[in-house]
């Protein structure tokens, strides 16, 4: 019961307290304005390069932008605590660590999902893209699964924040890596082979591919494999992130660097 409280209430409280982006003054420019301009930027570059349709860029960039809250908010769960000088207190408690860290991930998944869903909807309206009505519900599922897998990677950034002082830099670098590798704006077939190989192990790649197939009229069952792979990648990163968190927590205690990193 205590673990459930830590998971739900603790997670939500931590998210509200530490993710300082929830004020409309940050939320609107960061989560509503910026993704739309990223979509427009790449859609217009795509038109100039005569590469892919607008739909390709709307789906790729809207889903990729979920990475912003997923990476930054998860990183803040550690760096924010450190800034507030509460990290040693949190880690000194006997609280179940799985409930503690995974609980913090749940509101972030919802945030990432909402950003991706807004980007998809507004991007389609802005660029006049038609998506079949039958694809709407599956696209919602894809946005949710993609946000989940990105949050898995976010858990890794949270762990790294135990050792890296400039957590915002880590999150920005990962955002850039996802932008280049995951077929967001360049089809995987047009990337060098090694990049396409790397993309296969990153969150977003399969989610974006599934989103594009669905928007092109494919059925949910035909994209189930891609969606399941995306979810599995999220689980793998989540497990790796949690293991890294535990490892670095122990290391930080041993080196007395919890507040120093």
């Amino acid at each position, binding site marked *: 019961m205590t673990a459930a409280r830590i998971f739900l209430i603790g997670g939500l409280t931590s998210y509200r307290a530490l993710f300082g982006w929830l004020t409309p*003054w940050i939320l609107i420019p960061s989560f509503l304005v910026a993704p739309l301009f990223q979509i427009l930027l790449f859609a217009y*570059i795509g038109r100039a390069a005569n590469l892919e349709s607008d739909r390709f860029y709307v789906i790729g960039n809207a889903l990729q932008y979920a990475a912003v809250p997923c990476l930054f908010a998860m990183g803040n769960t550690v760096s924010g605590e450190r800034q507030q000088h509460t990290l040693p207190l949190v880690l000194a408690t006997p609280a179940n660590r799985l409930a503690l860290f995974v609980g913090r991930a749940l509101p972030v998944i919802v945030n990432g999902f909402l950003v991706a869903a807004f980007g998809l909807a507004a991007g389609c309206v802005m660029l006049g893209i038609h998506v079949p009505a039958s694809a709407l519900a599956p696209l919602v599922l894809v946005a949710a699964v993609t946000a989940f897998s990105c949050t898995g990677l976010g858990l890794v950034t949270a762990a790294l924040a135990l050792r890296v002082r400039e957590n915002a830099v880590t999150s920005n670098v990962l955002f850039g890596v996802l932008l*280049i590798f995951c077929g967001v704006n360049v089809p995987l077939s047009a990337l060098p082979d090694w990049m396409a190989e790397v993309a296969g192990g990153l969150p977003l790649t399969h989610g974006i591919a599934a989103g594009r197939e669905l928007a092109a009229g494919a059925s949910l069952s035909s994209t189930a494999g891609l969606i399941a792979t995306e979810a599995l990648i999220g689980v793998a990163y989540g497990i790796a992130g949690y293991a890294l968190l535990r490892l670095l927590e122990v290391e930080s205690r041993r080196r007395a660097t919890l507040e120093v990193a």
Partner: protein
Amino acid sequence: MKTLRLLGLGWVFQLKMLMQSAFDGFLGVLWPLFFATVAFLMFRTSGDPKTLLYASLGASVMGVWSSTSVAASSALQRERWQGTLELLVTTPAHFSLVLLPITIAMSTIGLYSMVATFLWGRLLFGIGLDIVHPFLFVLAIPATIVSIGMLGFLLSVSVVRYRTAWALGNALEYPVWLVCGFLVPLSLFPGWVRPISWVLAPTWGVRAIRSAALGGSALREIALCLALGLVYALIGILLVDTVLRSARSRASLSLT
């Protein structure tokens, strides 16, 4: 002479501080490279080397704007956090003389990114940089950097009452890349976008750099870029007085 010394030393000190910051220094170089890489990968498919050079020249200015937009919009807030804003405001020098070199240093840091973009394009994508008018090219770069710094100055003064202005600076990154034609020709946009681009100095800066590199006459673009920069600085100087008067009368200068 004193004014020039203040501007020069302010610029040097600020530049040294920015170089120490992982966020402004390291990420300032890396961030635009991510976008330049995607753009190069996209334009590469066209198979036209001229398109890649066009993109490379535009992408090089992206970093100058990136290092200015977020940093300049939160420049005053940063001084506030460091507890130095009151000290800077009470110095006998006009506050704009203190703030201008700060924002110009921010855009100067973009030079790193500019060089990195050219090298990245050359080494990874084989984009050769054969400049037709080297003198004009060398002239266009500082003109672009200074005028973008002045735009940053105007931005920093305009958003002084906006406590989380970094988010606005962040959100302004893509629109300026887009509207100023860094990677996309302005002819692709709806007609109403063009007048917006004309009043933005980066539009003329990137045009000047492209003209100098590709063989046009860049002098008109350089002049327009600098003239717009001066207009931003003048508006900023006028705004500084209003903003400081308001902050003093409300005793809100140090409120974060």
